[in-house]
């Protein structure tokens, strides 16, 4: 067993029935939705923390390849997070363009195969056109930002599935 049995905070106390319910429900739904068992699971919402671990053997039985991270931290993530893969994020604040010019075809669309370094979009910041490039070979599984919309630094623009390269 690894050393993850540590409370994140010790400064508050409360029954938190509702919050606990929420955390338990999300743990259950998470585990139910998982095809395989993680080695560890930890959920925390405010003062409520749920952490779980599974043995190596169990993990090997339940899953296929143990390439998953050892500890899955379930942190607050934006709703609507679905496909796994490599996210291409905005390199700066600016306006995202999917196409090289207004009426041109988009650089990429869902389902397209891309090569590492291939341009997949543009972020315009202070009149500078900053190319956005694929960070790996793969297939475009999602385009998150609409054409011509403002994006902030680190905002997810496109997701690529590298296993589909």
């Amino acid at each position, binding site marked *: 067993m690894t050393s993850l049995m540590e409370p994140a905070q010790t*400064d508050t106390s409360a029954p938190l029935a509702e919050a606990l319910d929420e955390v338990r429900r999300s743990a259950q739904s998470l585990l139910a939705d998982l095809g395989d068992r993680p080695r560890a699971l930890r959920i925390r919402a405010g003062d409520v923390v749920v952490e779980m671990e599974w043995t190596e053997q169990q993990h090997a039985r339940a899953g296929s390849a143990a390439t998953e991270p050892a500890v899955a931290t379930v942190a607050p993530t934006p709703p609507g997070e679905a496909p796994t893969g490599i996210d291409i994020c905005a390199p700066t604040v600016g306006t995202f363009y999917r196409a090289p010019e207004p009426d041109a075809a988009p650089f990429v669309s869902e389902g397209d195969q891309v090569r590492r370094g291939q341009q997949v979009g543009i972020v315009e910041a202070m009149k500078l056109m900053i190319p956005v490039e694929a960070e790996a070979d793969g297939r475009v599984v999602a385009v998150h930002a609409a054409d011509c919309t403002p994006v*902030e*630094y*680190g905002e997810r623009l496109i997701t690529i599935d590298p296993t589909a390269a």
Partner: protein
Amino acid sequence: MHTVLIANRGEIALRVARTCREMGLRVVAIYSTEDRDGPLVRFADKAVCVGPGPSRHSYLNLPAIMEAARLTGADAVHPGYGFLSEVSDFAEVCEASGITFVGPPAAVIDRLGDKSAARAAMAEAGLPLLPGTIEPVGDAEAVAKVAAEIGYPVIVKAVAGGGGRGMQVVTDPDELPRQYREIRCTAQALFGDDRVYVERYLPSARHIEVQVLCDRYGNGVYLGQRDCSVQRRRQKIIEESPPPGLPADLSERIGSAALQGVLAAGYVGAGTVEFLVDDLNRFYFMEVNCRIQVEHPVTELTYGIDLVREQLRIAGGERLDLAQEDLVARGVAIECRVNAEDPARGFMPTPGQLYGLSLPAGPFVRVDTAATASGRISALYDPLLAKIAVWAPDRPQALARMRRALAEFSAEGPGVSTNRDFLLTALDHPLFVAGTHDTSLISRLTDSH
């Protein structure tokens, strides 16, 4: 003016945001990935991530910040202190983009940011300078010549320096050539400008600064003085208004001189003129800070004026509605900067995750902080945890109140320590209690440790 982008972080960003909210202005926060969970992101009407943790990629990232302003429809930018607050390019780009920069015009920042030019301008306006050079000095021999004239110790300062950075005290003539080379290297590294000038060094003077407010129409007032003599490594840790024992006529002379100086320089907005006052009550101009100061709360508490509100009103083109004769300070205010640092290890910052934070409260206590009980003190930024300010009708009561308030403060986290006890020790020093301390107070404390 409808939407103000606050180009800063931490306590000052939250403090500016609060006044914006009170004035009915929309608040746009910018933040780095490091500050994603900070209170400002929650407080703001709109928050934009402008870059990763390191300041140069986020809080100093001028294009990203301007783009954030454009995308959020901000028509004004408040720079806070530090970061881009005294970068004239920022003011200039704002002006060019039709965005109101809450601060003086770019040209004024440029002139006053160059300490050599600022000394020349203030000397012309009649302010007394310490003996030394106004123009930069070109070589060690020239410094030696000046030093021989004005007497050792001297201080060699970077023209582009300020805020306690880029200066070197020279006590021994034999050490001068080496120290001269070092400070030029340092200045080049820190500011990209290796020009230096020289002036007499006062090892135990008082640091007295004047708060000024100037509108766009040539009207200005000063709001008394702050004593900021308690410094560690040239960084202020305890500030006080009014300075204890400063004679009323001297206070008026310093204030008038400061106001005269900034008005002559075409200053607009809130600014601070720093002076050294020696043991014979002679005062010497040091520098002008073209921003709101960290220690502005002590002036707010004694004058009952929201300085950020005045900044925003002035930036919006309104006239000052304060008359010098109506400005009366009441009582005594003291501020302590509680830092996440270890005084026993040379005030080394001690960043880390917090799991507990107790902030003082109660009558006449004000706490400016962006720290939270479950937050993290980032290693990437200033280790300021909280500014604790108190007000009282007189100095003994203010000291008692500050002791009480500091005793209520605690921050817990693995590896996190604070200077709270050090501040309490400084407050209890007989010289501080008597109000006769000067800038040498902290070295007296640390040397005796």
